[in-house]
């Protein structure tokens, strides 16, 4: 770019451009500092998971990776059978995602694309479930699970949240965008209603389904209070429950706990990074519309 001879004769546009470059640097570096502050806990988590408890609480605290990861992992395995715990978390989250995905998608489709008696008040009731705090149902649900002898089982964690109001809401919002003509032409081709759903409705919904799946998986993977209540036996714990149990004991091994925390958090962060476009856009499709 040509160097302007003096400020007074600087063309207006060049001046604006120069100012915008300044703004750009200012804004970008300001946000970069804020982002660094937000991400430091993640960085530190990865570092801490490779150190022993003594090193983590040493002075100065560790800022680069150590060599204690193996010990931390075996300590996790010994004190909390962490292999089993991770398996529990994975299985529960996967089964939940598939089943809840099906339940929510079917219901969302019915609410979006059919007019039937009772649909309005049914949908209203479901949305009430979105507003009523889950704590209201904790005690009776726990009693139910105890009575059915479901404590410490996968189904106790999975079943109560299958008809997730938010999931149904999300699918209804996305399905509403599907053109009715598409469904009608499918019907004229002789599709039965269920085949119509499988062959005509689902394929174009793939991005929304991906968003729903990510949301459901994250929800279940991170869920804490309900699993904490119904899982009472160490071997049935999910990762968050096991972590909180480890934290409660005397002489807590923080190296091991932080390694477990990294196992809980880092894969989710990576999955999210890989699929974020679906997640954010799908989540917002429902949220922003009036």
């Amino acid at each position, binding site marked *: 770019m040509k160097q302007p001879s003096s400020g007074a004769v600087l063309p207006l546009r060049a001046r604006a451009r120069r100012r915008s470059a300044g*703004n750009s640097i200012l*804004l*970008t570096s*300001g*946000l970069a500092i*804020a*982002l660094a502050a*937000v991400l430091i*806990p993640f960085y*530190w988590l990865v570092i801490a998971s490779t150190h022993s408890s003594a090193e983590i609480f040493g*002075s100065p*605290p560790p800022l680069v990776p150590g060599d204690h990861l193996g010990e931390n992992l075996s300590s996790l395995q010994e004190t909390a059978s962490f292999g089993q715990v991770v398996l529990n978390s994975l299985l529960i989250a996967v089964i939940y995602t598939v089943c809840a995905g099906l339940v*929510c998608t*079917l219901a969302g489709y*019915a609410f979006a694309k059919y007019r*039937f008696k009772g649909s309005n008040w*049914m949908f209203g*009731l*479901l949305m009430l*479930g979105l*507003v009523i*705090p889950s*704590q*209201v*149902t*904790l*005690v*009776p*649900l726990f*009693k*139910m699970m105890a009575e059915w002898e479901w404590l410490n089982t996968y189904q106790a964690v999975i*079943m*109560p949240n*299958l*008809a997730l109001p938010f999931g*149904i809401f999300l699918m209804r919002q996305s399905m509403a965008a599907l053109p009715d003509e598409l469904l009608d*032409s499918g019907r*004229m*081709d002789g599709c039965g209603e269920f085949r119509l*759903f499988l062959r005509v409705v689902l394929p174009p919904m793939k991005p929304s389904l991906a968003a729903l799946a990510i949301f459901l998986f994250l929800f279940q*993977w*991170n869920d*804490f*209070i309900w699993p904490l209540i119904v899982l009472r036996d160490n071997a049935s714990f999910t*990762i*968050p*429950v096991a*972590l909180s149990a480890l934290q409660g004991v005397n002489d807590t091994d*923080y190296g091991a*706990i*932080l390694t477990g*925390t990294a196992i*809980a*958090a880092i894969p*989710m*962060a990576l999955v*999210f990074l890989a699929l974020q476009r679906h997640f*954010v856009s799908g989540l917002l499709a429902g949220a*922003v519309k*009036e």
Partner: protein
Amino acid sequence: MTTTVTKTRPAPAPQGKGPRPRSRLTARRLAPYAFVFPAALLFAVFKLYPIGWSFVLSLFKSVDGVDTYVGFDNYGRLFRDPLFWTALKNTGTILLIQVPVMLALSTGLAVALNSAFLRARAIFRLGFFLPMVTGLVAYGVIFSVLLNQQYGLVNWLLSNVGIGEVPWLTDPLWAQISLGLVLTWHYTGYNAVILLARLQTIPGELYDAASVDGAGAWKSFRHVTLPGLRPAILLTTVLSTIGTLQIFDEPFILTGGGPDNATLTIGVYLYQNAFTYFDFGYASAIAYVLAVLIGVLGLIQFRVLGDKS
């Protein structure tokens, strides 16, 4: 592909003519019920029924496993229970201080993320959303170690600039501040993304018109951005209010409600009554008061922030 086939086919027979179309129509009428059925059944069993049951429970007092009907005594007890008031006050403090600060930050962040001046926008958008993906327990653990008074990284960093040990989790006031900071860390990016999506629907011509009228950055923010953001601000406010009133995981993991009950929230108190003291009747009463509180606050927010339409 489907359309070409449609053209070659005759239109479906008029209603009631022949058995096939009629059964088709019946199938079409019944299909939505079949689709909704699993959700409706599960919702009724695992949500509606427990909601009703917990109300019944709230009318009983259980002593040593024996339930006796006490009417609304549990609710009366709530009003006389100083700990409940403490929990209510703590939750209210978060609601009145942390939530507005966080939403202001989220709005600022959303505007910044939407700014044409920003470089590497995708990275920022991802990075700020990342805390949301982290489970409550996971980040509770992270922060309880980071904020450790003697050995935590945060106090070590502060000591390097000459600031003495801050009792992040052991002093009542600092514990409340820490809780607020952690909540802000977790939810600011999420709210910013909701606001950002709305921001992108505000037409650029509005800003052009504002600048033609001589509006500076602040004026166009006040008169174009804020009104345009209104529905998203309503949404994030309502979501944050519901979330805050139910807040449980963060104080439970970070401080267990302490020190000196400074971070005892309604959610934590409810949990303690139900699953530490096994006083289900009282816990249910707390849950119902909480539900009513959420309903009332939600309605007020819709009235104040929502459009007349």
